[in-house]
């Protein structure tokens, strides 16, 4: 899976690139509009991650270019938290999703996988992890071919874990994934604990392993060998 990451901050760019490579993507980078535009006209990418605020112009130009040249890469835009209008314009131009800075890399990973799946119709809509099988379209979850019933939040949580398996997900990152704008509630952490406890119980009751472990009081990890 090949991505083009357009982000002008070198440190951030490198950081995201490394993270995405670890997660099995092939990542090309660009630091400005010109460079990105050139790469976009020469190579083919499965997804574009575009920061809107670039030193030589708006990242929105790249979306326009992609749409004009009928490039059907999935597009994820990154915007500053306060630039509501950029976000709306980006989505109008044909971006598939947006994330506001600062974001959690785990969240980026999950979103990226989700838009890639939506964008590539020929792909299988089932995900498997250990004994767990998930149908993304019907939102059905099976453990050893046995159906388990999850709430919407538990389903989101499980999917987030599977997208980011074998990594520690901090409580902040989970809270933001589950509640978005309402994530700043300090008590959400108790809440996460509750959801995880329930999810874990449902999986183990259905005969699954205990995949989710608490890490250092900071977060949780979904381990799968």
């Amino acid at each position: 899976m090949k991505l083009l990451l357009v982000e002008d901050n070198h440190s951030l760019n490198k950081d995201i690139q490394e993270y995405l490579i670890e997660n099995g993507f092939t990542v090309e980078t660009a630091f400005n509009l010109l460079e990105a535009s050139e790469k976009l006209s020469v190579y083919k990418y499965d997804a574009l991650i575009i920061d809107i605020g670039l030193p030589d112009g708006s990242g929105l130009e790249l979306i326009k270019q992609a749409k004009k040249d009928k490039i059907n890469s999935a597009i994820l835009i990154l915007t500053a938290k306060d630039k509501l209008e950029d976000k709306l314009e980006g989505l109008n131009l044909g971006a598939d999703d947006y994330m506001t800075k600062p974001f959690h890399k785990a969240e980026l990973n999950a979103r990226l996988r989700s838009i890639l799946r939506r964008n590539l119709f020929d792909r299988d809509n089932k995900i498997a992890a250990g004994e767990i099988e998930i149908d993304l379209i019907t939102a059905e979850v099976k453990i050893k071919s046995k159906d388990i019933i999850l709430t919407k939040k538990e389903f989101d949580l499980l999917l987030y874990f599977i997208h980011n398996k074998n990594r520690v997900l901090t409580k902040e990152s989970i809270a933001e994934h589950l509640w978005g704008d309402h994530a700043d509630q300090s008590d959400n952490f108790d809440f996460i604990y509750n959801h995880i406890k329930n999810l874990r119980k449902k999986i183990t009751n259905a005969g699954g392993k205990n995949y989710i472990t608490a890490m250092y009081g900071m977060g949780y990890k979904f381990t799968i060998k």
Partner: protein
Amino acid sequence: MKKEFKLLPKITFVFIVFAFIAFYSSAVFLTNEADEFIYENLDSRFQKFEHSIKHDLDRGGSIEKLRNYIKIDSVNKSVDLTKYPVFSDTTIYDDELESDRSYKKKTIIIESKNQYYRVELIRLVDDFMRLREDIFESLIPAFIILAVTFVLFAYLLSGYYFRPFNKILQAMKTYKVGEPKNISKVKTNTAEFVKMQNLYHEMIDRIEDDYQRLKEYTEHMAHEIQTPLTIIRNKTENLIADEDLMDKHSETVKTIYNQTNHLSKLGSTLNLLTKIENNEFNKSENLQTKPAIEKFISAVEELVKLKDLKIAGNLNPGHSFFIDPILFDVIIRNLINNSINYSHPGSEIVITTNDDSLQISNYGDPLPFEEDKLFERFQSNGKTSNSLGLGLALIKKICELNQLKIEYSYSGGMHNFKISN
């Protein structure tokens, strides 16, 4: 404090005092002039008399004949000449006018042909004296008329002449930092007012300039720290993934992670505050509050249950605020989050709207600080380290900018926040 006086009455008072002094001194001056005139007049008359009597006597005129006109007696030579002339006032009854009339009398000694005569010369001064008295009698009413006119004038015209001044004051009063557009120049040709107004406008320009710079600084700070913070956070997440390291340093990493998140939230909230101050959320509309609040209640329902609280809305469907929906969202979110954070377990949070106000009440411990500090930035009860202490400052700012009134009260163990039009 020293007693204060208004300028115009003050000027009027001083003017009247000066006018009084001027009138009084001119009266005194005129009276003196009159006295001098009367004296000179009498003196020349008396001298003429004296002359003609002496002349008469020298020519051998008889005293008897003179007695028809004046009082004249021959006196002994031993008379003390140094005692004469003697001046005195006298009144003589006038049969015709049936009243006393004033006279000046000069008693002199005339020497003629080796014989001394004592002569009393008199002259009617009634008219003179009346003229002298008239000076005061006419100046006093003139002064009173002037004083009254001046007071009336000051009273009636103060409104007119001070109108630009009051308008300038009004403009000063309504001026708010960051809203210079409200200030229009008051037209006046009074030099002092023009000077004051110009100075005031220069001052505002300077304040606005400083304020803009400060605001930009805050804006840039809040904005520019976000990327470094994201990098720090990402790097920290890398550390969290390293189990060997975490076994040894989990507490340190946790602190770095939490504090970075705190800083990042602080930055974006300050940014939001600046944007609100910059009036960037200006899509105000007549917002029906009921659906917005209900949406919020359902969003926090799980959390409320988890905290063993209840949340109830007594919502009037007709209630609305004229506000940008994003800002109303900020208000209601912060108020509800606040009430969830500071509620006693097992208690109920009540949101009520009626025709013109919104109230949110919850049971909780009284504020650990003074009530009037509640809406200040970074005021927090210290219970939750996660709290930024900006929520209520944010709400207050929004209310201010949208002409809404926010009040806080604590009664019967309940915190009440009320927002009204």
